[in-house]
């Protein structure tokens, strides 16, 4: 193996694979390093794959990628202890030739993506942890140090695609430590059921049709967090995630929260008789725009979760990861073509490309949301609970007239939140943060 590459990519998740693929396709000499036994062996996701981001990199990915189901229906649940109020959107239009969203299993998907990267010409070494960066005296990054014997490797540029808990960038002082209120700790289980059972329980006609459910309310026991349940081919992914700072404060065990969610009367029948075959935990960057670290410097740039590129409001991450990886690669390719060095100044091109894409535009749009939710727990406990009480009161026919029921539901909401003024303020704050 040569010890100088055009680019070294640290990490073989969606961001690293996208970057390595695009650069290798353009003929660059790319080395990719991942600490897992195989790409994906350390990675966790819900998981919904957003086709558009991948399609822009590998247009015919549908022919060979390990896709579970394509999503034809999305449900939103506001959960209380014993009930849920839901909204759902289902459309046969999603049964299109090139579906827009799929469920996937990350360990398998990442393996597949990595095969494409290698077929494009990149060299991958696995079971190798990058420990540090090699810098010149002036601070320019010129390579990486791995945990292999004589493991120093040089490159013109290092792409840090190491994920949320990115130790390399932190250790090298390129980015600050993560804060406990900027990440969610998520736990997830994969529950297996016969394929037909999955289809029956979720009312799915087509063999590959799928449903995803996003959940707010009692699922997070008053913490800032959400739950989810996604249908795979022969399994169901179910998980919850809440701010790490909230877990530390409440000391609620994440798996206890997951158990409670699984035994909720709205969820238990969907999982009945299933066999749990994996339990996983992972962090999700949820600090949004204000948590984004410095993204470029002399000889290095950051892509994906390492840059905090997750839109927590819409639960999108892998598509931001793939898009930032692609834009980084295009930047590097363009600079080379123009005979320019990957200096901090020249890498402004990457920051400009990001700013011009949905990645930064969306993160900017929801900039105030993480802060708002952290300071306003009522969105996770008081409102979902009051909504469910109101629904029950209206639906239970017991001789009370409807006007009295409406009045009682309003009084209940006012009581729960401590006054109308507060309700109005919440609405206003919410609308402003969402804008």
């Amino acid at each position, binding site marked *: 193996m040569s010890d100088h590459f055009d680019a070294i990519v640290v990490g073989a998740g969606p961001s690293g694979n996208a970057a390595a693929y695009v650069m290798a396709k353009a003929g660059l000499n790319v080395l990719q390093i991942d600490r897992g036994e195989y790409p*994906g062996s350390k990675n966790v996701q819900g998981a919904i794959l957003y086709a558009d981001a991948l399609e822009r990199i590998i247009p015919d990915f549908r022919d060979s990628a390990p896709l579970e189901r394509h999503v034809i229906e999305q449900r939103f649940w506001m959960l209380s202890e014993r009930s849920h109020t839901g909204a759902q959107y289902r459309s046969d239009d999603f049964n299109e030739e090139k579906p827009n969203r799929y469920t996937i299993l990350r360990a398998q998907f990442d393996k597949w993506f990595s095969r494409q990267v290698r077929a494009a010409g990149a060299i991958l070494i696995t079971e190798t942890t990058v420990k540090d960066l090699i810098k010149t005296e002036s601070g320019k990054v010129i390579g990486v140090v791995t945990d292999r014997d004589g493991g120093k490797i040089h490159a013109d540029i290092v792409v840090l695609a190491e994920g949320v*808990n990115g130790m390399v960038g932190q250790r090298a002082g390129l980015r600050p430590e993560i804060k406990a209120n900027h990440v969610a700790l998520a*736990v997830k289980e994969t529950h297996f059921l016969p394929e037909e059972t999955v289809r029956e329980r979720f009312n799915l006609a087509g063999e590959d049709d799928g449903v995803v459910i996003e959940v707010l309310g009692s699922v997070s026991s008053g913490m800032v967090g959400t739950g989810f349940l996604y249908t795979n081919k022969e399994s169901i992914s179910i998980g919850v995630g809440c701010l790490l700072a909230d877990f530390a404060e409440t000391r609620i*065990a994440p798996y206890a929260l997951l158990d409670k969610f699984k035994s909720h009367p709205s969820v238990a029948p969907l999982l009945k008789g299933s066999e749990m075959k994996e339990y996983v935990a992972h962090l999700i960057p949820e600090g949004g725009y204000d948590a984004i670290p410095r993204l470029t410097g002399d000889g290095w740039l950051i892509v994906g979760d390492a840059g905090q590129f997750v839109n927590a409001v819409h639960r999108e991450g892998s598509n931001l990861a793939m898009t930032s990886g692609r834009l980084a690669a295009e930047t590097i390719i363009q600079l080379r073509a123009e005979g320019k060095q990957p200096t901090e100044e020249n890498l402004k091109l990457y920051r400009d490309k990001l700013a011009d894409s949905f990645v930064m535009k969306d993160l900017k749009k929801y900039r105030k949301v993480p802060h708002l939710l952290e300071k306003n727990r009522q969105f996770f406990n008081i409102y979902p609970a009051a909504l469910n009480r109101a629904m029950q009161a209206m639906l239970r026919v017991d001789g009370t007239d409807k006007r009295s029921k409406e009045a009682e539901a309003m009084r209940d909401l006012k009581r729960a939140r401590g006054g109308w003024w507060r309700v109005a303020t919440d609405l206003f704050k919410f609308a402003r943060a969402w804008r």
Partner: protein
Amino acid sequence: MTDKKPETASPKMEERLYQNRYLVDEGNPHVTIHPQPGGDSPALQSLTQICPAGCYRTGETGRVEVVADGCMECGSCRILCQATGEIEWSYPRGGYGILFKFG
């Protein structure tokens, strides 16, 4: 290859982690505690309840201990205790640690 169950976990946690695959790097723990003179910080103590793999427990001396064999490498304990200096954390050597089948 070992499917090792951490001794610290509750029976339920053992069952859970039993499904997972690990390659334990014997003798090279990737998480260690450096006890501080003033006693364990609330952050360290919280880990006995919130580590998703149940790696932390309160030992007989009343101090928090860690057995990181079932660790899923989420990084939570590292982040929570970065200010107190109680935890030394690194990724396991390449290839070792958790191996997700589905992720």
